[in-house]
């Protein structure tokens, strides 16, 4: 049911990192023609060599590292790290007091 277009969190991050010119509102939308000006969806070496996969990877890493940095600012006051947060249900917090009471998780302001 959900193609790549449906999974925004995955798709947009990849697209943005690759420099895609389209957006939900104003798409360039020629992905299917093999003429992608950024070389993302093209097999023509003159186009696809415009894409530097290493730079894309760097941008992706930068994104998640900065995301992690921000997350740390939130979870560090809760006494937790962001390393492998499997089962850290105690680190759940919510800004909505009622929801916090109902779910019996921490209320954070």
């Amino acid at each position: 049911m959900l193609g790549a277009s449906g999974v925004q969190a995955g798709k947009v991050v990849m697209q943005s990192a690759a420099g895609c010119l389209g957006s939900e509102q104003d798409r360039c939308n020629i992905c299917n023609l093999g003429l992608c000006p950024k070389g993302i969806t093209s097999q023509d070496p003159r186009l696809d060599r415009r894409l530097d996969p290493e730079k894309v990877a760097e941008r992706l890493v930068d994104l998640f590292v900065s995301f992690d940095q921000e997350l740390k600012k939130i979870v560090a006051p809760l006494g937790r790290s962001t390393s492998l947060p499997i089962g850290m249900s105690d680190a759940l917090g919510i800004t909505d007091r009622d929801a916090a009471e109902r779910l019996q998780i921490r209320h954070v302001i």
Partner: protein
Amino acid sequence: MNKPTIIIPGMEKGLRVDSRVLEERIQKAVAEGHRSIEIIAQGQHGIGGRLWRAGSEPVTVRVMGTSGQRLGSMGSPNTTIDAVGPASDDVGWLNAGATITVRGNATNGVGNAMAQGKIFIDGDIGARGMTMTKHNPRFEPPELWVLGSVGDSFAEFMAGGVAVICGWKKEAEANILGYRPCTGMVGGKIFFRGRHQGFCEQDVRLAPLEDGDWQWLESGMKGFLAAIGREDLHPVLLEDRGEWRLLVARRPHEKADGPARTLAQFRRDIWEKELGTGGLIGDLSDLDRRPIPVITTGDLRRFVPVWENGKYLPPCQANCPTGIPVQKRWELLRKGDVEGAVNLALEYTPFPAAVCGYLCPNLCMQNCTRQNANLPAVDTRLLGKASIEAKPPEPAAATGGKIAVIGAGASGLSVAWQLYLRGHKVVLHDVREKLGGKMTETIPLSRIPDEVLDHELSRLSARIPHKRLRHALTEEEFLKLKKANDFVVIAVGARKPRIPNIPGVERAIPALTFLAGAKCGDAAPVGKNVVVIGAGNVGCDAAGEAARLGAESVTLIDIQEPASYGAERRHAEAAGAKFLWPRFTRAISEKAVELTSGESLPADTVIIAVGDAPDLSFVPEPIAQAKGSLAVNDRYQTSDPQVFAVGDAVKLGLLTQAIGAGRIAAETIDGMLRGRDQVYDKLPAVDPVRVKLEYYDPRAAEADEPVACSQQCASCGACRDCGLCEQICPEQAIVRRELEDGGYEYAVREDRCIGCGFCAGACPCGIWSLVENEPLE
């Protein structure tokens, strides 16, 4: 008070109890208040887990017999499980607080993802023990105690908790930690005693055993050994503190990973090393994969400019049926070669003045590119009129080829002229004294001054012999002509009027007869009211002449919207002629033309102009005809290869079409006589959008003499050597080169050109074209 111990058997009436049923019975026992339960297990799954119904009251589960998988999975903190034998996979899976003792070995996955509780193993464990365990700081960390050793992938992704591996009786073993322990471990501690073969250095490190750690180990060991009933081992295991070592997860900042490997390094050092050069598709492609910028040069350009000078015909020439290089003439004029410009036409037509200047509807002008920008077409008529002074070129050396041309009208004269220029011996055969056919006979004087036509005809008659026939040609005479000549060209025109089958039609005069009479002055007198049946261009000419000869009212009727246009139509309209359609003639009476509608048009004179057909009575049977005309191929050759046919005898058309047909036929005959294998491919017309008209001032007055006209010509498809491309190229990639033959060309320096297309955008003549580059593979 607690109820006594309940024994729940795993077998019932000789059958094994299902895991689900056994679970229900255990839960029921707890609900009924039993806090001590003994299970005679038969390999049932998940025994002892999820007993939270007892609340904080402790529940003891003793497992006799054979435990199945997931012993104590999701165990509650109040539960103590004691399995008296070994256990299967996933002991304490997702353990949430139970204390689980296994008095024997346990297989894979012990303590997988447990969060709380303790697991005591009186033996060894299999692979993936203590994986993904975690520690919620609100509770005590989960613990796993193993008396012996552990299997492979121990503590993979361990995030919290403590594991203790005592290595009891494993002193002789080289590795008590298994293969690749601690991969991805981020939290928790592992105490071990014994030898090992390494662990994931990137994620964990050996830490010194502090006093606090030692105290914790000492006290914890007491509980473990008590649980498995081996208190006697306490002094043995803890005899030498130096035997114990401690593994802790590295903090993120301690991780020993240097700068990340770049993709390029990965490709070079790992990917291509394993898969060979080019990786997975190395055997299919050896293309360079390195990134390139958007703006590229050379092979990497997506589009490349091409200098297409003379690759396309200008629209004027492409649309001229005669094929006169109109634009070339303007070019010669621009270069100041007035004579050359004028003379050039004679190579293509014997009537550069009469036809181009007067009688032609000038398809060259109708198709002039300038009109796309609402600019007036370059006026070819001026150049045509000026061509009266053209000097004929010298004919080529005589070849001895003999050709008879039957009919000395426009098409016949065109063939004869072309063959004459090519050095062949050509003789015209016509019954009329004067050359020129319809041009001489029927085209009204108002359309063309006599002296122009006479001048051009005399140029022909002075050079080409004319054999006047005494009577219309017969089949026998035609065959004789054919025998005596290499080729015969039939150019008899269409002189047999089509007469519709209507009562009283004998009262009407055929248009050509009327026009011929009107021109030489011996026409029958024209009445007051004239009706012309058929409102084509011949009808219009007849109407104009009728008015000139004194008719007061001229009416043209047609069965459909009249097809007439151009000068003929304008002349008729200027003479006050009325056009009526659709009108169908029923009969022609003494004084009127009766129509099928019942209408009656008063008519003293009726002229029939519904078309003419060629008189082909002399043409022998084997030569194919179609719809009353001669059938020819695209080179105007009939079914008899020795016989060609051109002009109205093939298809009614314009003078210029007849002249063009004559030229093509003559070219073909010439080729055959010289034994050349001719290829007649005509260049395609230039796409008018390529020609830039922004350079021309729309306010400029229309040129009224040829030299001024030549300046207005856009030179479609032919380079004017203006150098604009050279100037405008942002990369200085365009260079002009002199050629050895005295010509020039503009070329592109591939190493500089970026394929921007400025040249194609700026070129006034549409020479430069930006085309897609050749595919790289």
